[in-house]
């Protein structure tokens, strides 16, 4: 509550003169509107809480229930599932990798621990084993890897095996083989793997049965035998 260059954040007793209140109630398209970056605006109830709290003197100790006119807020939701470490501290590195490799590393959502999606659809021809090898510094941030139609081979799967938080992996129409797929069994969070139109066969997918988290394996247009009748 120390305030910034523009002065104090809260003027006790005067919500309409408090920067905090002004910022969350101004025209949402205004550059100064908070929360920024298209994050969801506060709900009317949350705004009301701020208003009555400031009006009542902006006490740091008073309980909400003791403030007259305060709306009852819904109980906060359970803790968000952390899919990967916060990517923000490595933002510069991510930007540099996007630039040099011509790949995209996209936050899944505005939640910083929702991880990154590795995207190559813009130009799959640029993504090869060498490019994947350079992603080591952000390996634990990647939760989805869209590698369909890229140039990667079994050698690249060694890099992918280090994507410890990977949940979804698309290898459609790549040169990976049964020999390489076994490297992926270390990915204990993997939920879905797409092997459509690859040279993988039954022997190749067999080791994947040890990945307990795995729910979907697509093997259309491969030598993998179709599943028997349920």
């Amino acid at each position, binding site marked *: 509550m120390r305030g910034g260059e523009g002065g104090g954040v809260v003027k006790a007793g005067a919500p309409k003169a408090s920067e905090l209140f002004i910022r969350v109630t101004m025209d*949402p*398209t205004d*550059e*100064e509107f908070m929360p*920024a*970056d*298209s*994050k*969801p*605006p506060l709900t009317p109830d949350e705004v009301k809480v701020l208003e009555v709290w400031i009006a009542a003197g902006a006490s740091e100790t008073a309980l909400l229930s003791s403030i007259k006119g305060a709306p009852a807020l819904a109980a906060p939701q359970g803790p968000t599932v952390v899919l990967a470490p916060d*990517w*923000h501290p490595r*933002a*510069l590195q*991510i*930007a*540099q990798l*996007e*630039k040099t490799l011509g790949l*995209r590393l*996209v*936050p*899944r*959502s*505005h939640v910083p621990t*929702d991880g990154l999606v590795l*995207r190559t*659809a*813009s*130009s799959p021809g640029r993504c090869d084993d060498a490019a994947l090898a350079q992603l080591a510094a952000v390996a634990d941030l990647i939760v989805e890897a869209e590698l*369909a*139609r890229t140039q990667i081979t079994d050698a690249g799967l060694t890099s992918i095996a280090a994507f410890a938080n990977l949940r979804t992996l*698309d290898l*459609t129409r790549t040169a990976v083989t049964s020999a390489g797929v076994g490297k992926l069994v270390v990915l204990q969070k993997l939920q*879905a793997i*797409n092997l*459509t139109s690859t040279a993988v066969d039954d022997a190749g997918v067999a080791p994947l049965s040890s990945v307990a988290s795995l729910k*979907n394996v*697509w093997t*259309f*247009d491969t030598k993998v035998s179709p599943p028997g009748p349920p």
Partner: protein
Amino acid sequence: MNYFPTPFQTRRAFLGRVSHGVGAVALASLLEKSSSLHAASVRPAARGVVYPLPLPQKAKRVIWLTMAGGPSQFETFDPKPKLAELHGEAMPESLTRGQQLAQLQGQRLVCHAPQFPFAKFGKNQTEICSLFPHIGSVVDDICIIRSMTTDAINHDPAHMFMNTGSQIAGRPSMGAWVNYGLGSEAENLPGFVVMVSTGPGRSPQPIATRQWSSGFLPSRFQGVQLNGRGDAVHYLTNPGRVSRAQQGADVQAITALNRQHDAFVHDPEIATRIAQYEMAFQMQASVPELTDLRGEDARTLALYGCTPGDGSFAANCLLARRLAERGVRFIQLYHRDWDHHSLLKEELPLRAKEVDQACAALLTDLKQRGMLDDTLVVWTGEFGRTPMSQGNKGTVGRDHHNKSMSMWLAGGGVQRGRVYGATDELGYAAMENICTVHDLHATMLHQLGIRPDAFTVKFQGLDAKLTGVEGGGVIEGILA
């Protein structure tokens, strides 16, 4: 910083540029603290204005199957035995009094029985018209909405409403909104592609290109139409003695001139032109690869039931899958000639046959390739049709209708094997879980990771939204 306009700038360009400039500075200073990722030099078109997304994406792309003309729900997805019982009798006036009708205004209103039997399909024994056995075979993968409504009752405004959320032309089409919001994934194909097909025989209403306009958004977001027959894009190949290198040099030179001019007059449409020259050059290489179906095996062609290049809806469905694989964000296929004021019994089965197998094939193909989970497929007309018969246009048919229509969605985080909403017993009006076009738009945006109520663009003093002034509600009841 210097904000004085040069005398060569248009007022609009100047104002647009200034607001972008200020915004960009503000944004840059904000981001310095939180992250510098935004400053990365990824191709600018790749990143949309909504970044990072407020919600994780359930759908990464959309394939919208538009049945132009307005298919009858009574011969597709809404069984109405009571309507059959009352066939030929007067429509209860309690339903129709004071209502706006298209071509039946002032006529005697008579119940018209569903013209084809319905049958039960799938695990859930979902009842749909027996003219759609292939869709029946995948009915456990789709979510039928029987309570859709729209505002418009004439074709062009109804399409406009379905595409842009406004009956009046000039708003951006949804494909433009989505690419503006999310950015375009493919580097060598447009982010919004449109294809139009027609069955053999009759000549139905045309679909105007304004249906895939970018409206007030920059024109690089507008839909690009590919032809299903002949060259997908006219004049795609270079003339005989022009090599790709020469063509590339030309484009480069033109781009350099355009950039020079842009530095002088600051018109955003020049940036669009530069982008379009570059995209066209890329497409000279990417489109032949896209439309070359030699890599598709006989099994796949048989699944869709098409001959490559025949311009059929089925062939376009196969191309839609190929576009989706190549990173195209929004694909819209129109199939025309569903406007059965007359010849309902004769013509509708032909349309059904043209799309039934192809729709099912698209879903099956996406599913077996692991793409259905993150592709949202939508099947709609622009409006529904009346439970009353129309006999003033030759043999019997049904008139346009906006109080009830049926549609379906599949994939992209939508429930499977679900029927949502219901109409009254004669199918005149949606009664249960009534949905509007704004709701549909809101739901689609939500599945794409965008908050529909916060996705706005300043236009004519308003914060314009795809979901309109009144807004739309996400149809939570159909989400997985």
